C-alpha cells in the first residue's frame, strides 16, 4: 500500500519551485529479498533472508521478527526459525538495479546511484514535470511496471532531507519535505538519523545529553570539530537541515572491492593466493572498464574463529594492471595471514583512483607498463566476448576443479552481494 506525506510549507517551496534545489531519493524496498519473492511466488508472504553469514537483505515479513541487515544468520534463525534463507544472486540484483536506475535517468538529468538507491537531481525540471511530487509518483509507477519492485521516494531541497523524509514512509511510500518545513522536520530527529552519526558518535553525544538534531544545534562548530574531527563541520550543517553535497554521476568510484568466503575454511596458501589473484583480476578489470587506476591496494581477511584484519598500501604509481596490483596484494597477504587458523573470507579493495592517463608515469617503466596495458586490454577483449572464465591466470589455476565455473568465471560461495 503506497503512502504519501507532505511536510511543511507550500507544495512548491524549495522542491522544484523556480530554481530551488530539488533532490529525489529513490530507495528500493527490501531489494534482494523482494526480487527473490518475485522470482519464486512460493516465497511471497514468508520471511525471507538473503545473505551468507550475515543478513544482506530481508523481507518485511522477516523484519516483523526483529531481523535486520547485518545480523548474523545464527541470530536470525533463533529469532525466526521458519525464515527462508537464500545465499543470493548478485548478477540478478545488478540487472534489476540497472532497470530501476534507467527509469530514474528518464526523469532526472543527473542520477547518482548506489547498490539499491539513487539520488535524482530534479532541480530546474518543474517546467518539464509540473509538480515534482506527481513526477515522483509517476516514477514509482514506472519502476513498478518495469520491474515489479516497489520503491520509496523522498523529495527534498537537498540529498540529506530527501533521504530522511523517505525513511519516514517506508515501504512503498512517497514523502516531501520543503525548504520551509525543513527546520521543523530535522529538529526532533534523533541524532543517530543524521548521516555521519554512527554508534560511537551517538554515544558521545548522548553522554552530553544531546539526543536530537535540535539539541545538537547548541554546540558550536568548534566543539563538534574537536569531538569528531573534520566531519564535525558537516554535522554542524546537517543538524540544521543543510547539506550542500551535489548529486554527482559518480564517474570515479571511491573504491572497488571484491571479496568472498571460501567454500570450506582453508589455510592452504595456494588456494588463498589463487583466490586473491582471481579477485585482483576481477577488480582490475572493473577498474579498466571505468577508465580509472587505483593508487591504493588493500587486503582484508577473516579467520574461521571470527577474528579479522585488513591492511592497505600505496603503489608507487597508480596502476590497473593485474600483476602490479597482485604483487602488492600478495605482499599484504603475507604480512596479514600470520595466525595458524584457517581463513573464512578474503577480500581485496582498490581505492585512491585517478583517471587513467591523467597520472605521471615513471620514465623507464613506461615501455613495460605499455606492454602490460596492451596485454590487459587483450585479456579484457577476449573475456568480454567469451566470458571472464575463459582466461585463468597463474595462481588462480589452483581454483580450477575446486570451484564451479560459469560464463562469469568461478562461482564464488558468497560473492559480496554488493558487487
Amino acid at each position, binding site marked *: 500500500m503506497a503512502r504519501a506525506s507532505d511536510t511543511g510549507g507550500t507544495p512548491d517551496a524549495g522542491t522544484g519551485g523556480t530554481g530551488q534545489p530539488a533532490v529525489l531519493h529513490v530507495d528500493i524496498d527490501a531489494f534482494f529479498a523482494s*526480487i527473490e519473492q*518475485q*522470482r*519464486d*511466488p*512460493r*516465497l511471497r508472504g514468508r520471511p525471507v533472508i538473503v545473505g551468507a553469514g550475515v543478513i544482506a537483505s530481508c523481507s518485511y515479513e522477516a523484519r516483523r521478527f526483529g531481523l535486520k541487515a547485518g545480523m548474523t544468520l545464527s541470530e536470525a534463525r533463533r529469532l525466526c526459525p521458519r525464515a*527462508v534463507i*537464500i545465499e543470493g544472486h548478485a*548478477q*540478478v540484483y*545488478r*540487472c*534489476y538495479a*540497472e*532497470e530501476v536506475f534507467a527509469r530514474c535517468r528518464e526523469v532526472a538529468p543527473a542520477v547518482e546511484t548506489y547498490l539499491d538507491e539513487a539520488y535524482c537531481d530534479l532541480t530546474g525540471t518543474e517546467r518539464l514535470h509540473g509538480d515534482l511530487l506527481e513526477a515522483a509518483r509517476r516514477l514509482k509507477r514506472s519502476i513498478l511496471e518495469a*520491474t*515489479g519492485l516497489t520503491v520509496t521516494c523522498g523529495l527534498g531541497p537537498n540529498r540529506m532531507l530527501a533521504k530522511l523524509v523517505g525513511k519516514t514512509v517506508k515501504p512503498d511510500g512517497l514523502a516531501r519535505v520543503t525548504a520551509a518545513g525543513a527546520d521543523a522536520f530535522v529538529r526532533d530527529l534523533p541524532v543517530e538519523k543524521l548521516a555521519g552519526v554512527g554508534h560511537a558518535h551517538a554515544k558521545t553525544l548522548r553522554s552530553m545529553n544531546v539526543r536530537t538534531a535540535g539539541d545538537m544545534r547548541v554546540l558550536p562548530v568548534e566543539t563538534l570539530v574537536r569531538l569528531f574531527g573534520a566531519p564535525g563541520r558537516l554535522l554542524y550543517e546537517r543538524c540544521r537541515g543543510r547539506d550542500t553535497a551535489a548529486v554527482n554521476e559518480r564517474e570515479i568510484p571511491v573504491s572497488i572491492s571484491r571479496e568472498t568466503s571460501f567454500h570450506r575454511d582453508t589455510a592452504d596458501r595456494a588456494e588463498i593466493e589463487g583466490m586473491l589473484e582471481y579477485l585482483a583480476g576481477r577488480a582490475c578489470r572493473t577498474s579498466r572498464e571505468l577508465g580509472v587506476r587505483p593508487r591504493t591496494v588493500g587486503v582484508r581477511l577473516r579467520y574461521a574463529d571470527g577474528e579479522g584484519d585488513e591492511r592497505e598500501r600505496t603503489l608507487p604509481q597508480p596502476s590497473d594492471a593485474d600483476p602490479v596490483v597482485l604483487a602488492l596484494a600478495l605482499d599484504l597477504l603475507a604480512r596479514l595471514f600470520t595466525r595458524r587458523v584457517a581463513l573464512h573470507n578474503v577480500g581485496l579493495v582498490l581505492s585512491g583512483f585517478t583517471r587513467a592517463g591523467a597520472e605521471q608515469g615513471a620514465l623507464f617503466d613506461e615501455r613495460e607498463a605499455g606492454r602490460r596495458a596492451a596485454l590487459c586490454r587483450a585479456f579484457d577483449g577476449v573475456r*568480454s*566476448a567469451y566470458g571472464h572464465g575463459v582466461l585463468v591466470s597463474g595462481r588462480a589455476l589452483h581454483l580450477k576443479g575446486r570451484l564451479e565455473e560459469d*560464463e562469469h568465471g568461478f562461482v564464488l560461495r558468497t560473492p559480496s552481494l554488493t558487487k
Partner: protein
Amino acid sequence: MRQEPIDESVSVRADFQGGAVTPIAFRRRGREHRVVRVNARWVDRVPRHPHYYFSVTDESGDVYQLQLQAGDLVWWLDSVALEG
C-alpha cells in the same frame, strides 16, 4: 529454498507480441511443460548481446529459470527452484 542447476538447451514456444518475448511452454526430456505464470523477467545487458531471463511456474507448480540469449536466439533452462 535452493536452486538446482540444469543448464540445458531447450525448445521453447514463445509469444513475441507487443515487442516483448513471453515463454508459453518448454520441452525437456520429451515432456512439455506449460508455463502458467511468468513470475519475473529481467535482462542482463553486460554481454555483447543481451540475455533475457524469466522465472516461470509450470502447470505442476515448479519454478524454473529460462534464459534467451539474444545473440544466437538459443533458449536455456538454467535451473529449477526446489523447496527445502
